[in-house]
Each structure stands twice: as structure tokens, then as C-alpha cells.
């Protein structure tokens, strides 16, 4: 199916948007200057018409509040992301084989078979290149097709991008059964629509007991076996090992950068870690991503040292994002501008990844696939409440936060069912928490104005600002 009726709006716009960003970030110092003194002040509070599609990107890049060193690091991340989008677009246009993977699937392994990898789910983020209502547009396509409006909008956007005809046809599909109904159902519906494609499903474990992890690791070997049998391709071990080294470099750097955010004042780079996370879902094992992570770590170090030398004042208000970040906008710059509130840790950006063990082929595979279970959003949706309580408690303590903001994403059933438990967890620690009831992908739920009103109300109500 290499003949498409329409161009892939999703991929074309993503590639174009990334292209422009890369052009701008080629000169990180001037990009920083521009954002800090010209664009940032115009965009933080308002959405002028001309900036409708680009505003989110500016906000995500810190709107002038992050140093050029971090922008330079992000450029590398965008180079990696761009490779993924270009591969997707290429496959869309030419019919070149591409594999679909779900986001906890070890895409590094699939790529070591010589496949380019595309993850349909990532439409939730890619659609932001079409403006703040890009996600809503794809969600609406899914709803109109009659799938459901109770799915998580992340998956609605993914399905929508397929139903809109924006995705390259896969020649191999590797699904996961991430313990989130919605993600699983997205895989199932896509599998229904691509009946002739060899499809392998890795059953993601619910708990972390030995036998469950053992099964997870075994399923990676079954995956390798499956790909070999069904495509005639062989795993390039040298390539896999090279990828694993990049993954490892990334891991070490990111772990350190996340830890450094405990400093008070904290470096303002938590949002950047969030961007890296999104890219690593599909581009894990690329050198550019490892470089990006290392540069982010260096920038974090620079911040910490700089702050210490200048005896910078402590953070006014340290915020923890307790769940997934909003995709279609960003209000970190707004919070900082008006309340001096700094996001010091977030559920997505902050992570601790176990290192890769290079002692044997087996150990590489094992650590690579177990590492995927520590990915943000995969990590927190597993297991019983103790996992979530534990993570929230330790983040509140270790990062010395003053309050917690939960987006409470509309379609996230497993998180919504923990609302009371997490709210009590924060109360026990004496830390105020706000549950915003918004949708992270679909801006039809709660507008930016309403979100800001809720945050402002929360800050003043609890005397935080």
C-alpha cells in the first residue's frame, strides 16, 4: 500500500515544524535572546494569531527562561526526532518497509533488524505541530468513527492519525499490552485494520515479581524469533550493541540531570527532560539522543554551579507535576513569570533508568527490555497503588516541593481511580495538591484560560503565592 490518496498531514507538518525549529536552534544563543526578549514576552500570556501554531513550541522550549546551553542540547534531541519523522514520511511516500511499535516496545531491538520504526501513538505529540487543536482534531476523527470517547486522548489521537490516512503502512507491527486499557485497545483496533501484517504482541507485565519480569524478557527473545521467521531479516548484533551503548549513555546522563534538579534553586530544565522522554519512546538508541542527554546534563550542572557561585535566591515555589504533562500547551513559563513557581520534578521528565549490562548478548537484551518498564508513563501505570504512592511520596520529599499539580487526564482511568489515594498522600505530607481535570491532548476539555484560572485560584487559596 504505497499509493496514498492524500499527503500525510501529520508527518508533513511535523517534519516542517522540526525543520524550522532546527534552523532556529542552529544558533542557540540568538534563539535564546530572541525568546527571552522578543517572542517569550509576547507569547507567555497571549496567543496572537500569527503564533497560533508555533506558540506551544516556544513555551515548551522555555519561552526564554532556559539557557542557550539547554537549547543546544534540545537541538540534538530534535535531530533524533526528525530522523524518525523523516523515516516515517519516507515510508509513507515510497512504501519503504517500516515497523510500527508501541511505546514500551524495545524499538532499539526492532531497529537492529534494519527497520525504521514508527509509533502510531506518538501522534498525540506530533499533532501539536498543527497548533494547539491538532490533538483535538485527531481525537475528533476517532470519536466520529464511533470508536469511543472514553479512550485516553493520547490513543484517540493515535487512532485518529491512522483513520485520517496519515500513517505509513507497516510491514511489521510490534504491540505491547501496557497496563492501560486505552493503549491496549488502540493496538487492538489498529491490528484489526492491518490484518495482513505480521504482528507480535509483547505482554507487558502488571507487577515486578521475578517470574513476571522473566516472562517479559523471554517475550523479547520470542520477538526476535518472530521477526526472524516472519521477515527473513536477521538481528544485527553489532548494531544492537551500538544502540545499547547510546541508550546507556542517555540513561547515565538523564539519571544525573534528574537528580540535579533537587538543588534549590533548581535548574529550570525539567521541561526539557520531558521533551527528551517523548523522543526516546521511538528514537531510543540514536547517538543524537545520547548527545542531547549529555548536553542537558552539562547544562544542568552549569545551572547548579552558577546558582551556587552567585548565591542565587532559593526557589519561591517548588512545584511537582504529579502526572502526565499537557501536550497542547505549556504553562511552566507562565507560572514562573507570575508566581515564581518552578517545576522541579515531573512524572514524565524525572526518571531513573537502570543501566545496560554489556556482559553478554543475553544481559544486553535483558537490561534493554527491563529498562523500558522504567519509562515514564509505563512505570507509573503498572502494579498496585503502592507504586504510585511511593513515587509521589519520595518525589515530594526528595525534591522538597511546596505543592503538587495533577492534570488528572480525562481518559486516564487508572490514574483517575487513584485520585483520592494520591490526594490523601499529599495531605499526609502536608503538601497541597491541585487536581485540574483537564485533557492533555484535547484542548476542547479545559481551555488554557481555565487551566490558568485553576492554578491561580489554587496558589492564592493555599497562600502559596
Amino acid at each position, binding site marked *: 500500500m504505497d499509493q496514498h490518496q492524500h499527503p500525510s498531514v501529520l508527518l508533513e507538518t511535523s517534519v516542517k515544524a522540526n525543520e524550522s525549529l532546527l534552523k532556529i536552534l542552529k544558533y542557540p544563543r540568538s534563539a535564546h535572546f530572541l525568546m527571552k526578549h522578543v517572542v517569550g514576552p509576547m507569547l507567555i500570556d497571549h496567543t496572537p494569531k500569527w503564533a497560533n501554531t508555533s506558540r506551544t513550541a516556544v513555551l515548551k522550549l522555555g519561552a526564554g527562561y532556559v539557557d542557550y546551553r539547554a537549547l543546544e542540547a534540545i537541538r540534538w534531541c530534535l535531530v533524533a526526532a526528525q530522523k524518525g519523522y523523516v523515516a516515517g514520511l519516507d515510508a509513507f511516500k515510497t512504501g519503504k518497509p517500516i515497523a510500527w511499535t508501541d511505546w514500551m516496545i524495545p524499538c532499539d531491538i526492532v531497529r537492529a533488524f534494519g527497520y525504521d520504526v514508527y509509533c502510531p501513538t506518538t501522534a498525540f505529540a506530533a499533532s501539536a505541530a498543527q497548533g494547539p487543536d491538532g490533538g483535538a482534531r485527531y481525537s475528533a476523527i476517532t470519536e466520529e468513527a464511533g470508536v469511543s470517547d472514553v479512550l485516553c486522548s493520547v490513543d484517540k489521537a493515535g487512532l485518529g492519525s491512522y483513520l485520517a490516512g496519515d500513517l505509513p503502512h507497516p510491514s511489521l507491527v510490534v504491540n505491547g499490552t501496557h497496563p492501560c486499557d486505552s493503549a491496549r485497545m488502540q493496538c487492538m483496533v489498529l491490528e484489526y485494520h492491518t490484518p495482513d501484517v505480521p504482528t507480535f504482541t509483547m505482554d507487558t507485565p502488571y507487577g515486578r515479581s521475578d517470574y513476571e519480569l522473566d516472562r517479559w524478557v523471554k517475550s523479547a527473545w520470542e520477538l526476535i524469533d518472530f521477526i526472524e521467521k516472519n521477515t527473513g531479516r536477521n538481528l544485527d548484533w553489532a548494531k544492537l550493541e551500538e544502540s545499547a551503548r547510546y541508550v546507556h549513555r542517555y540513561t547515565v546522563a538523564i539519571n544525573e540531570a534528574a537528580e540535579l534538579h533537587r538543588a534549590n534553586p533548581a535548574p529550570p530544565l525539567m521541561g526539557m527532560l520531558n521533551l527528551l522522554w517523548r523522543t526516546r519512546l521511538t528514537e531510543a538508541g540514536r547517538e543524537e539522543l545520547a548527545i542531547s542527554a549529555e548536553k542537558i546534563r552539562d547544562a544542568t550542572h552549569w545551572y547548579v554551579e552558577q546558582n551556587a557561585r552567585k548565591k542565587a535566591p532559593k526557589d519561591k515555589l517548588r512545584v511537582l507535576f504529579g502526572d502526565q504533562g499537557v501536550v497542547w500547551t505549556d504553562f511552566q513559563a507562565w507560572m514562573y513569570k507570575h508566581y515564581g513557581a518552578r517545576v522541579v520534578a515531573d512524572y514524565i521528565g524525572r526518571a531513573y533508568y537502570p543501566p545496560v549490562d554489556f556482559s553478554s548478548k543475553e544481559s544486553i537484551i535483558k537490561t534493554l527490555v527491563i529498562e523500558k518498564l522504567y519509562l515514564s508513563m509505563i512505570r507509573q501505570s503498572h502494579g498496585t497503588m503502592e507504586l504510585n504512592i511511593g513515587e509521589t511520596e519520595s518525589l515530594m520529599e526528595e525534591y522538597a516541593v511546596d505543592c503538587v499539580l495533577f492534570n488528572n487526564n480525562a481518559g486516564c482511568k487508572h490514574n483517575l481511580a487513584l485520585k483520592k489515594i494520591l490526594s490523601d498522600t499529599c495531605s*499526609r505530607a502536608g503538601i497541597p495538591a491541585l487536581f485540574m481535570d483537564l485533557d492533555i491532548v484535547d484542548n476542547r476539555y479545559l481551555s488554557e484560560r481555565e487551566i490558568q484560572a485553576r492554578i491561580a485560584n489554587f496558589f*492564592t487559596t493555599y497562600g502559596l503565592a
Partner: protein
Amino acid sequence: MRSIGIDIGSRYVKAVAVSNGGDKGFGCVPIRGDMKASVKKAICEAAAAVPSSLFEKTKYRMTGTGHAGKTLYPFSSPSQCLARSAFEFAPNGGIIIDAGAMVIEGIILSHKGKIIDTGKNERCSAGGGRFIEIMAKALGVEFSQIDSLFEKSSNPYAITSGCIVFAESEIVTQVNAGKKLEDIVAGMITLIAGKAATVCDILTEKEERPVFLSGGLSKFKTLQKEFERLSGVKCGKLSVDPIFTSAYGAALIARDGK
């Protein structure tokens, strides 16, 4: 010295004037067209009962969710105003549950008047006052009849639809099917009281604190009773009309302020 609190809701502007001596004045005006005019009118009504000399400056504070970004006076969040009001009734801390038109909100206060926790009901289950309004209209029942109808009911009908429009159709069907009016009214009160009780349960650390029910809905005595039955708490009595709780809190904040 006179201080005036203004609460802009979805339908009405409520204003409360207080003097340092403890005099109070109230004004409640429906919002028609120009909001500014309605605000002015409500302020006049409230101020009339609390005269002030020409040389004294009146302090203002505004709150509410219906202002659409047009804050004519310094603004305090609705939760803050409710909390301030509750602190006046419960100087040793307490819980205030405010049943508004769309949302039921709860706040716990510490003995110093600090907000410990807040909670509210959610989508697909929203609609406090507006719910009762639409239902009552569909049933052709006056607000004043609701309490007595509730008392007459022996077998309350359990409304299952959370969505207002579907609930409306559900009760119309039930009336047509011969269900007694009082049983449906009782079901409706129980439903809203249950939502308020849920909000009360959402709050943490609520042991041993007095509970107050505020907002227009708490005017229904039976709703308060049902709420007490479902949540197992006893409600305290507010010293102002429950629809003015927020505005009163705003006035107190204005008075306390510099």
C-alpha cells in the same frame, strides 16, 4: 469603615456590606445583559443597610466564577472567600460544603482558618442547583413545594442518570409511568445530597470538625437532612443566608485587608 464583598455567580450577583461595628447589608440581583450594572445594583442594595460617611473609603473585594475575566475590584478566589466565611462561623476550624449551581465544592479549615484541603464533584456528575432547577421545571414543581413533597415520599425513586438532560428525560418517563411526584422529588434531593456527601468524604482529616452547608441549595431543609443522613455528620447553622456565604467572606477579606 465599610467593606463590601461581591460574588458573581452564574446567574446572580450577590453583595454583602459589613461595617467594623458588625452591621450587615445584603443585595442579590440577577445578571441581565450588562454585568456592571447588575454589580452596581447589588452593591447599592447591600450598602443601603450599612451607611457610611462621605469621608470614609469603602473597601471592595470580588469573587465568584462568573466574572469572565472582568474583575472590577481586587479579586479573591471563591475558595478563599468561602473559607473566610466559614472561619467566622467556625473559629476552631471546620468544613464548609458549598452547593452552587454547577459544582459542589468542599473545604476543610484548620483552627487558624488555613485551608487544609478542598474537593469538588466532577464531570458527568456535575450540576447542583442547576440540576434541581431543570428537574423542578420539568416536573412543574415550585421550589417552595420541594421540602413538603420530600416529606410525603415513602419510596424515593433512585435517579440513575448522572447527565442532566438524560435525568430530565428519565423523570418525565417515570411521571408518565405513574410514579408519584413526591417520590421523584425525594429521589432528586437524595441524589444531590449524595453528591454533597461524596464531596464531604473526599476531604481528608475531617474528624471532629463542624460541618456547614452553604449555597442556594442548602435552603432546602430536607436536602440538609438527607446530607446529614448520608454523610453521618451534623450540620451547623450559618449566621448569614447561605446564598451570601461567598460574598460575606469576600467582605470580611476586604475588611481584614490593609
